[in-house]
């Protein structure tokens, strides 16, 4: 029997993009409002049903972005009784799903709305410099640390040193992800790409090449959650939250406990598996944060899909590509679909579409269980969500 108060995802929406931009331009507030409306409409709900609001973004700092849930409540004319401003970088939305699940199960709210919006590309793109020089960053910025790519390059170098991981193995991830993007009309990058192409792309921060790095795009998304009981009367087939976990180990990269081991993902994953009563081998489709190719290898190892150090061998021979035996990042990922800065909400949206069977050419046959793992900061935070058809 399904518990009546089990948390379910009942509506999703993402912002249509053209060449990585919102057509005609839009503010982050407009992007989020339209995504909210569309996700609620898909569920068969209205804005007035929302009584829980969870928002993270990197816009409008220090205000209104530092109070993003308040800003969006005001903008949408909502007075929510459950608010969550958790910002742990790109993993925030996996955390939001976990937090909303707990709130729904506890009766703290009945309809939770998770929001994200970004005008990163139209608004000037991501800077490799211009970072603050205070707090922890007074010990990074003066040395010319290119952020965020430099942090991931440091992890990749250490992983190569400890385990013999190669640039070719990292490139396999980018190539497999591109193969999925070629099946997704909404993906930004759909040209064919080979391992040789990745290795021939400009070196950004050795050992990471340009095509080891995610895209820089606009984007937005919304997720609507409610209880299984209420979900029964709604428009879309619900997707149940079966387990979740989160962890953070550091913020700045020199403080990472072990550059070759993603311990925050180990802990988040273990907690999600425990709550779900499942393990890595039960998953039919996997959506893993791919800010950079090394992020994927570290996450696969930490989540138990392979042993520590074996991520490179695991992804060899296009194992994660369409037709491979490990379907991963099936929308084309942050590497080829879109990456507005905090990518985690798109992992969840794609997993829901796969579990609903809405993915057309890229549909994973008989996908019933999905694992989603977000990474935030500089390999700083991790959050895992396990989803199933309800």
């Amino acid at each position, binding site marked *: 029997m399904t518990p009546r108060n089990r948390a379910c995802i009942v509506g999703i929406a993402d912002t249509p993009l053209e060449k990585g931009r919102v057509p005609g331009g839009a503010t982050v507030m407009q992007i989020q409002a339209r995504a909210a409306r569309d996700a609620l409409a898909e569920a068969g709900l209205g804005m007035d049903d929302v009584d829980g609001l969870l928002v993270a973004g990197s816009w409008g700092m220090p205000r209104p972005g530092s109070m993003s849930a308040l800003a969006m409540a005001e903008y949408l004319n909502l007075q929510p009784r459950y608010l969550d401003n958790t910002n742990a970088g790109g993993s925030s939305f996996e955390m939001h799903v976990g937090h909303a699940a707990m709130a729904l199960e506890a009766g703290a709210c009945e309809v939770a709305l998770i929001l994200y919006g970004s005008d990163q590309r139209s608004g000037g793109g991501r800077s490799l410099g211009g*970072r603050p020089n205070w707090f922890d960053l007074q010990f990074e910025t003066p040395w010319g640390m290119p952020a965020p790519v430099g942090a991931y390059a440091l992890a990749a170098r250490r992983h190569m040193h400890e385990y013999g991981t190669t640039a070719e193995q990292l490139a396999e991830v980018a190539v497999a992800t591109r193969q999925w993007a070629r099946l997704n009309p909404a993906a930004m990058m759909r040209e064919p790409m080979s391992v040789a192409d990745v290795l021939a792309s400009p070196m950004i*921060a050795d050992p990471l090449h340009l095509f080891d790095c995610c895209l820089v795009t606009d984007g937005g998304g919304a997720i609507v959650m409610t209880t299984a009981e209420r979900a029964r009367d709604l428009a879309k087939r619900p997707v149940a939250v079966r387990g979740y976990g989160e962890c953070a180990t550091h913020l700045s990269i020199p403080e990472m406990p072990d550059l070759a081991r993603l311990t925050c993902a180990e802990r988040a994953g273990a907690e999600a598996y425990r709550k779900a009563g499942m393990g890595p081998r039960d998953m039919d489709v996997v959506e893993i944060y791919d800010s950079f190719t090394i992020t994927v290898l570290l996450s696969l190892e930490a989540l138990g899909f392979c042993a520590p150090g074996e991520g490179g061998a695991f992804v060899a021979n296009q194992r994660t590509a369409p037709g491979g035996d490990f379907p991963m990042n099936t929308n084309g990922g942050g590497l080829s679909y879109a990456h507005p800065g905090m990518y985690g909400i798109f992992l969840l949206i794609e997993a829901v579409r796969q579990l609903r069977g809405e993915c057309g050419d890229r549909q994973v046959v008989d996908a019933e269980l999905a694992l989603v793992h977000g990474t935030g900061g500089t390999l700083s935070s991790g959050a895992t969500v396990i989803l199933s058809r309800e």
Partner: protein
Amino acid sequence: MSEKPYGKPLPMPDLETQPFWDGARAGRLRLPKCNDCGQYHFLPRALCPHCRSENWTWVDASGDGVIYSFTIAHRGAGPAFKDDAPYAIAIIELAEGPRMMSNIVTDDLSRIAVDGAVRVTFDAVTDDITLPKFTLVEAA
């Protein structure tokens, strides 16, 4: 006659970090050392991260370490570092235990390797700020 001003980002010292930057200006690499558990830490913190004691003191470190990991920035961090690329950024594991980020100063970037020995050097970039950087210690 006028020297070209230092056009790169400087650290913004605060009450907690000023002793580190004062030390660097005097040619010393300073680390917090706990008087209760005896361990060093970095970044500086009100409470020792090992035993949570507030009873710690800034002490001079040896300046020796090894490269825990490194990257060569082929695109500088913003316009200020554009002309420096390629340059090396490393996480140094100091002999006392803590790790810190810095640059490896060398004419030959290809000599940089994980586990390579390094020693601190001081780059007085302005009258107020000296940046600790590291050089390779070549095997005899």
